[in-house]
Structures are given as structure tokens and as C-alpha cells.
């Protein structure tokens, strides 16, 4: 649910029917030119206070020592960065985050596309599809805290997942999915896959409904079977949405904190430590705000690389 973002495609750069604020009058009264800024002033103040100042602050912290906890922090250059980048826990977090976000995104895409295509079928009535659609969106309507406790219950060594697997003869005894270093990362990734596919599905469903039926008819006339139609019509038509959603999902998933924090706290043995939980621990468990800030800036830079690809993709589509 923290997927609190929307495609910025709807941003007004496209072609807003914006009026030139009647140049004649504007010249007559220069104060009129300030009108749009007056309307924007609350936004500008909030963006400065909530984003620009904090980013300047965190960058500042990252070059100092003993920030927040002491009065007079000293400038230490890149020492915090050197400390973080050589910390084995940080490197483990980097690797875990890479696995977590790439597996989650691929699974979100595959499940989201499969479900969207089933929900887009012509074979069922509108009401049936509407009911299934609500069921399929369900996981997305629960807050991450709830998702974490649901999966802790299900994945408990004595829980229902283990019961089913034992009944099917797939495991001998209850597996401690979240407590075993060999399975914990896959268990949290699975919970994240479950909670995150609906957003992909909704966007892909809308995109599927936007594909012209003519394209499918033309392909059918050419003798293309279902598979060919999928590969030659559906996928190319969905490509822009798929690429944007995938990049956005990588960004969101890399920011996932609550799920990991509540399911494993980064353990066992750092096997589910993510960049977000590592940074949080440095700051609020170790009170090492300076090295936490350095880690936070590294996370920001990594996100900016992803965001850069996203923006470039958006511009190419335009």
C-alpha cells in the first residue's frame, strides 16, 4: 500500500490547455504575474520544508561525525561513506535488496499480466469479472503491517502453509520459513509478491482494455493463433506500460521497510537485511546518525539512477 505513487504521465507538461494569463493585463499590472505563485505558495513551502531542506540536512550529516546526539559535530569528509561501503552488513543488505526487488518485480509483472488477461476475457459476463476483480485486488487493500502479521501466522512452523505442505508430502516437518537463514529471504519476497501484484494488474488491465480490437482481428485474419497474437499484438502494445511499471516497482520495492521490519527485523543472520532496515538500525538502534545518513544518501543516489531511467522512458514514449 505504500505504493503511494502514480504515473507522472498525467503531469501537465503534456498539453495542458493552459491559458497565457492575458498578456495585456499582465503588463498593465505586474502583480498579476505573481498570482500563480500565490496559488502555489503552500506547495512550494511544503516541498522546501519536507524535501529540499531534509535532503540538504542528510547530506550535511553524512559528512560529519556524531550528528544529532552531540552539540558540535566535526567535519570528517567521506569517512562515513568509507565506513558504510566497507561494512559487510551493508554489502549484504545491498545484495539482499537486489534479489528482493528484482524477484518481486518479475513476479509482480508475470502474475499481474496473467491475472489481467484472465480478467479481460470475453468469455465471462461483466458481473463475474467484477467479482473476481475485487477478489484479486484484495491483497492491495491491506496495510503492510497487516500483511506482515498475516504471513507470520501462515508461515509459522505450526502454521497452515506447513500443514498443507506436510499433507502433500512436500516437507517432512514444519519449516521455520522466517527463522531459517536459507528460506527467510524467499519468504519475505513471497509475502511482498502477494501484496504487490494488484497494482500491476490494475494498470495492465486498463492498458489491455485500451488495445484496439482491430489489431487482434487483423492478426486473426493473418492466421495467427493465440500465442502469436499474444507475442505480436498484446506484448508490443503493453510494452510502454510494462517498462514504466517495472521501473516504478523497483523503486517502490527498494523502499519497502515495514514488511521486512515486522516479519524478520532483517534477520536471521542478516539474511533479510535490506538497505532500508540497515539504515534504520544504524540510526535508531545504534544511534550512529552520521553513518546512517551516509547510507541514506547512497540509497537516494541508487534511487535516482532508477528514476533517471524512468524519466528517460517517459520522454521516449512522448
Amino acid at each position, binding site marked *: 500500500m*505504500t505504493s*503511494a505513487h502514480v*504515473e*507522472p*504521465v498525467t*503531469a*501537465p507538461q503534456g498539453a*495542458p490547455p*493552459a*491559458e497565457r*494569463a492575458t498578456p495585456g493585463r499582465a503588463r498593465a499590472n505586474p502583480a498579476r504575474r505573481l498570482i*500563480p*505563485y500565490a*496559488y502555489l505558495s*503552500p*506547495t512550494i513551502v*511544503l*516541498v522546501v*520544508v*519536507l524535501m529540499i531542506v*531534509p*535532503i540538504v*540536512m*542528510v547530506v550535511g*550529516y553524512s559528512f560529519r561525525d556524531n550528528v*544529532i546526539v552531540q552539540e558540535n559535530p566535526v567535519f570528517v569528509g567521506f569517512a562515513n561513506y568509507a565506513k558504510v561501503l566497507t561494512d559487510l552488513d551493508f554489502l549484504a543488505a545491498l545484495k539482499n535488496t537486489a534479489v528482493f526487488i528484482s524477484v518481486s518485480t518479475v513476479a509482480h509483472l508475470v502474475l499481474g499480466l*496473467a491475472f489481467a488477461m*484472465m480478467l479481460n*476475457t470475453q*468469455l*465471462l459476463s461483466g458481473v463475474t469479472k467484477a467479482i473476481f476483480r475485487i*477478489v*484479486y*485486488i*484484495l*491483497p492491495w487493500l*491491506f*496495510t*503492510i*503491517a*497487516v500483511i506482515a502479521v*498475516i*504471513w507470520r501466522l*501462515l508461515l*509459522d512452523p*505450526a502454521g497452515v502453509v506447513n*500443514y498443507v505442505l506436510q499433507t502433500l508430502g512436500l516437507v517432512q516437518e514444519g519449516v521455520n520459513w522466517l527463522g531459517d537463514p536459507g528460506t527467510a529471504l524467499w519468504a519475505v519476497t513471497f509475502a511482498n509478491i502477494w501484496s504487490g501484484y494488484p497494482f500491476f494488474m*490494475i494498470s495492465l488491465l*486498463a492498458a489491455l482494455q485500451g488495445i484496439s480490437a482491430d489489431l487482434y482481428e487483423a492478426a486473426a485474419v493473418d492466421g495467427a493463433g493465440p500465442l502469436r497474437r499474444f507475442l505480436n499484438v498484446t506484448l508490443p502494445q503493453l510494452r510502454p*506500460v510494462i517498462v514504466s511499471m517495472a521501473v516504478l516497482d523497483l523503486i517502490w520495492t527498494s523502499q519497502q*521497510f*515495514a514488511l521486512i521490519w515486522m516479519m524478520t527485523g532483517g534477520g536471521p543472520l542478516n539474511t533479510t537485511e535490506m538497505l532500508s532496515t540497515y*539504515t*534504520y538500525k544504524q*540510526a535508531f538502534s545504534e544511534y550512529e*546518525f552520521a553513518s*546512517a545518513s551516509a547510507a*541514506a544518501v547512497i*540509497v*537516494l543516489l541508487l534511487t535516482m539512477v532508477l528514476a533517471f531511467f524512468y524519466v528517460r522512458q517517459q520522454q521516449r514514449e512522448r
Partner: protein
Amino acid sequence: MAGVKRRHTLAKAGVVTGLVLGGLFAALPVLWMLSTSFKSNGEVFQNPPQLITEGFSFDAYREILGNGEQLRFFLNSYIVAGAVTVLTLLVAVLAGFAFSRFTFPFQRTINAVIVSVQAVPPITLVIPYFGLVVALGLYNTYAGLILTHMVFTLPYAIIMTTAYLNTLPKELDESVKVDGGTGWTALWRILVPISVPGLIAVGVYTFMISWNEYLFALTLTRTNDMRTVPIGIQMLMGQHSYEWNQMMAMSILGSIPVLVLFLLFQRRFIGGLTAGAVKA
């Protein structure tokens, strides 16, 4: 002809099977949460598991709803999410009006900054927010949470409001100006009333984001009387030795506002959410 019909039936059977399997994947965990909330705690891990047990009761709900500390989490969540929704809509309407009805220097730059706010990781912001909120005397207050939640809600709200206002014709504002009114009157007398459907979608999404927020609620509060539902759920996890039935009951109670809002405004909401994706 019969062959075509049979293939049609087969295809339909295939799709229905797929939909049901997918539906089970989506719904079973939720169903299990619901089922567990009605069990006595001793029955939670009984073998073999049962959906409805002998000890079926509303005790877990009674326990949560009869506990002042738990109720306080709900009150806090309503206060914070309600205030965030009202303030976000207010600021977003003003900003959307500026972007939609004016052309001005740095318009694209300001817009790009607002869009990019969405990508900034919360974990990067939480450290300076902690310093900032303490310095401003807002640590462990509603105001601190309301203010910081708006960093998530505003960008989306501004983008959506601008898009919505762009769909409304200019002639509407002009009619007010002909009568001697200003842009301000046009906005509040004409544009905002017409935009109610769009603003509802923005408001619902804003409420959901704030209701679900976890990291800032965890970091910027200290005492239970300021904490919100997601933190309350987490605290239930550590507090008692795993009262699973109560955790599930609290989870369901904590999910109801979002579920109700979603079901009420589903159509509008999904429409607004996907408007961008379709255009891409």
C-alpha cells in the same frame, strides 16, 4: 460448428479454472486472517487446521474494542489521516489551479520537482525529519505526523487534481470573470464544486496512504497515546506472547476504513489511478 462450440466451452473452463486458482491465492490468506480472529488463542495452531472452530466467538474483537489503549490507536489514525486528507486536498486544489489555468516562468521546473518528490526514499527523509521535528517541538505530536505524511500525499494529489482541472473547459472560469468575479471566485464557486468526483478519488487515496503509513509513525512518536493503528498492530505482536486472535481482529478492524472507502468509490478510484497508465 459443434467443434467451435466445444472449443469455446473448453476455453471457458480453462479461464474459469485459472481465475479460481488465482482467486484462491489472493483470498485464502485474507480468509485465514478472518477465521483466526474468531478462534480462541489455543485453537490458532490446532492440527488439522479448521476454518470454523468450536471456540468460535467475538472475544478477540471485544478484547480490542474494550481496551482504551487500542481504541486510542484508531482515534489517532482517524485524526491524522482525516487532517492529512483535508489539508492535502486544500493545497492540491490551489496548486492544480495554478498549473491548469496559468502559464508562468519555472512552471515545468516546479512541476518536475513535485513529480520527483515521489521517488525520494522515506528512509532517506526519516533521519533529517527526526532532527527537524525535534527542533520544531513537533516530536510525538499529531502535527509532526500530519506534516510529514503530506510529503507522500501531495505529489500524487497535485498531479491528479491538475489533470482533472485540465479536463474542465476554460469557458467555465470566463463566465465568472464576465460577471466581474476573479480567478479565486471561479475556482471555489465553479471549478471545485464540479470537481467533487475527482477530488473524492484523490481524497480516498490520500486517506489510504496516511492510514497505512508506518515508518514515520514509528519514528516520530514515542508514547502510545500518539501512535497509529499500524504501530498498534506491531506492538500487539511484542506485548502479549502472541495473542494471534487479537492481532487478527485488530488487523481486520484496522483494515475496515480502507476496505469501505475502496468498495464505495471503486470505479472512480481505479479510473483515476489508471488514467496515467493508459495514456502511457
